[in-house]
């Protein structure tokens, strides 16, 4: 009971600090964008637009105000949940995020599942014979997949599976000849909910290559983490104690060592999914995946301040929430964790 209260207090403290962290991040992004060279008005109107038209749009977009006023206006809007509208086409930023975020989450979650399954399987496969062939292969796999340049792997897989074999689409998120199912924005989920199996097939086929690529690249992290933690766990006192009680080796591994070895992996998974939401840029660019990272990159190029600010704030909020959730989950699973 006391531990439950402790956890609750810890979670509440972390969540209470989240607004401060978001304020710091959003302020930093606001300042960095203003310092960066390039004028958003040029991006909207083109550099050849008449000066009076530029002045007019600058006024309209609030860019003519002193920087401090712009900042307080931005923070005030943010507090009220208003992320503003895109400078380029006046689309509300929350619509842009609502459109792109599900694509990134769908990709990240699928990639994470693939990475966890394949990475943990490889990590686990060599445990029977440390330094044996399988263990060495697992180590090589772990380091190799981690070290491979993402864009290079992505292009190779694209060339093989899409161009040469023609099994999967080269890029995009949905077949151009079909109308995407409406709903949550998660196309696979929406296709299942609407019972549209053709759409589901299309969505899965488009997701397969980017998700497998990202999954492959991430799986090495899981392989290494499991290998190291499992080996450490197998050498620990409680495992020796279990063995001395006469439990079979598989019981020792599966019931005692593995759950303990998986706890750090859970933390890694949490950090990975959080970083993937905004960090899968190379994969999104290579596969033309219309996710939030690709949108962020385009908005930075266009100096579309509100979109960049909105996306960064939302990603930061997600990272904070996921890390708090993972911390709480680990703490609830591992009674040794103290705060």
């Amino acid at each position, binding site marked *: 009971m006391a531990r439950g209260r402790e956890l609750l207090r810890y979670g509440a403290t972390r969540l209470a600090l989240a607004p401060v962290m978001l304020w710091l991040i959003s302020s930093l992004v606001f300042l960095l964008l203003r310092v960066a*060279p*390039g004028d958003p008005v*040029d991006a*909207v*109107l*083109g*550099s*050849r*637009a*008449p000066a009076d*038209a530029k002045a007019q749009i600058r006024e309209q977009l609030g860019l003519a105000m002193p920087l401090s006023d712009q900042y307080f206006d931005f923070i005030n809007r943010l507090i009220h949940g208003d992320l503003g509208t895109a400078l*380029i*086409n*006046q689309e509300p930023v929350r619509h842009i995020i609502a459109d792109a975020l599900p694509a990134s989450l769908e990709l990240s979650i699928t990639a994470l599942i693939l990475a966890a399954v394949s990475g943990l*399987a490889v990590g*686990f*496969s060599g*445990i*029977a*014979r440390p330094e044996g062939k*399988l263990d060495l292969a697992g180590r090589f796999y772990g380091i190799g997949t981690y070290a491979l340049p993402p864009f290079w792997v992505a*292009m190779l897989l*694209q*060339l093989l*599976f*899409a*161009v040469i*074999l*023609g*099994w*999967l*689409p*080269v*890029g*995009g*998120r*949905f077949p*151009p*000849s079909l*109308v*995407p199912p409406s709903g949550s924005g998660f196309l696979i989920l929406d296709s299942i909910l609407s019972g549209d199996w053709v759409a589901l*097939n299309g969505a899965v*086929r488009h997701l397969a290559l980017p998700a497998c690529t990202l999954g492959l690249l991430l799986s090495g992290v899981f392989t290494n983490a499991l290998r190291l933690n499992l080996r450490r766990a*197998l050498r620990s006192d409680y495992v020796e104690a279990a063995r001395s009680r006469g439990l*079979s*080796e*598989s019981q*020792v*591994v599966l019931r005692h060592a593995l759950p303990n070895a998986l706890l750090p992996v859970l933390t890694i998974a949490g950090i990975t999914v959080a970083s993937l939401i905004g960090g899968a840029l190379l994969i*999104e*660019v*290579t*596969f*033309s995946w*219309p996710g939030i990272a*690709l949108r962020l990159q*385009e908005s930075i*190029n*266009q*100096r579309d301040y509100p979109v960049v600010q909105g996306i960064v704030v939302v990603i930061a909020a997600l990272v904070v929430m996921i890390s708090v959730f993972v911390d709480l989950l680990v703490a609830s699973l591992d009674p040794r964790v103290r705060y």
Partner: protein
Amino acid sequence: MGCISQSQLLQQQRRFRSTWISVAVGLGLSLSQLACQHQHSSDRLTVASAGRIASLDPAQANTYGTLQLLSALGDTLYTREQDNSLKPQLAAEQPQISDGGRTVTIPLRRDVLFHDGTRFDAEAMAFSLNRFLRIGIQSYVVGDRIEAIETPASDVLRLRLSRPSSSLESLLTSPYLTPISPTAYANHKDRFLNDRFIGTGPYKLISFRATQQRLVPFKRYWGAPPSNAGLDMINLSNSTALFGALRSGEVDVLLSESIDEDQRLALDRRADQGLLLESSGPALQIGYITFLSNAPPLLSKQVRQALVHSLDRSLISTRVSHGQRQPLRSLIPPSLQGGRQEPWPIYSPDRTRTLLRQAGYCQGQPLELPLTYRSNVPSDRLMALTWQAQLSRDLPDCIRLRLEGVESTTVYGYLGKGAFKAVMLDWGGSYPDPEAYLAPLLSCTQAKGDICEAGEAVISGSFWTRPGLEKALRRSDSLKGAERLEQLLAIDTMAAEGAAYLPVWLVTPKAWAQTHLAPLEFNGSGQLRLARLREKR
């Protein structure tokens, strides 16, 4: 670990391995099955191009992809044919010029409907023109030319001009001026409507996403119906994806902008082997270098002239684009009136050396010149690298180029502030007329001697002008035929002598298609005729 426990684990591993092998085989078989489904399920065609479509509003359009899409969804008053002739589209006949060239009367077709079922008439055209002039981001292309837009009858549009303008006819072919339904845009008179388009074109938009648009034939279209059952337009984010999508048969047609040079070459080779269809339109995009002419060292005309003699265009074209980008020695593309002449000098290292020596360079004092290129444009970087290598081979004691890669947005942001001594850029006119190339680079509204203080030459980053140049530009737009040609030649020659710009190459728009399609066609404005895409009979 004991022996027994190890064998147990090994057994588990074997089971585990066999499960994984079964899963992998199953997955492979499923993919093979899916591969069979990767064929066209309808007679619709898929057309791929690069980049997102942020807005479908003609007042907001500024990318090649958007203009290409608008050309399928909308019509213009006139179209420019490949032979450079002007063909009426929504206009019923050729424009009637009166009042010494200051009044242009355009009779309109009476059988045209917008996609929302409302009738196209002079009021609708005036609404669209006025809206573009009011909020269009490219409204500067019209400038101060149109003084008033009148509608004397429902099928007659009259434009009152501030001055005679021979380029106006070409301007009327621009997709920026495509008419939109006043009813559908009633709430968007003064703001953009990004995700819909209600025009008069052969296709109707039924679904819009920034990366995917679905077009169906407009059943009540006034002209010849489209030759296909509809189009699925997709926008991919990079050249490799576009290239792969065409090679794998995923898309039927690929539009060429943003395709890397190596991939263009590979597609050309496949076309030569009969594995693809290839078609090209009139080359209307020029690549050039701007020299900052109001500050040393390029304040000196002699130094600028030395530089324009120093560029080996043939080498650049071969090394950068495998000869696909044609060398260019004019600011006007050759497919336009006045573009056949070549006033810029040919490559001559000896002449460069002589001029630089006269200016006090060489002999142990080389000209140090920073050359800026857009870091996100691969061909610009290659061009800069090649020119740098060519100069260090041919004129090592006279010129040293220092390369600086700067991202596009920053380049355009600082160009008019005189931040770059020499910068590689490109330009495509908003309409197919020499005016759309000369005025945006050379026009100057306020000058002191050869230095421009306000106007397009400042925005272009050259700050160069010449007494009489602005007058010559205005005069060329008021002339026609041989007189205009002569004037254009004079302007281009003045610009070549001033040497504030260095034309490098010409980019030809290309499209590739699968061999089951009939040959592709471009119009004179460099746009693919999407309505004419069809299966081979």
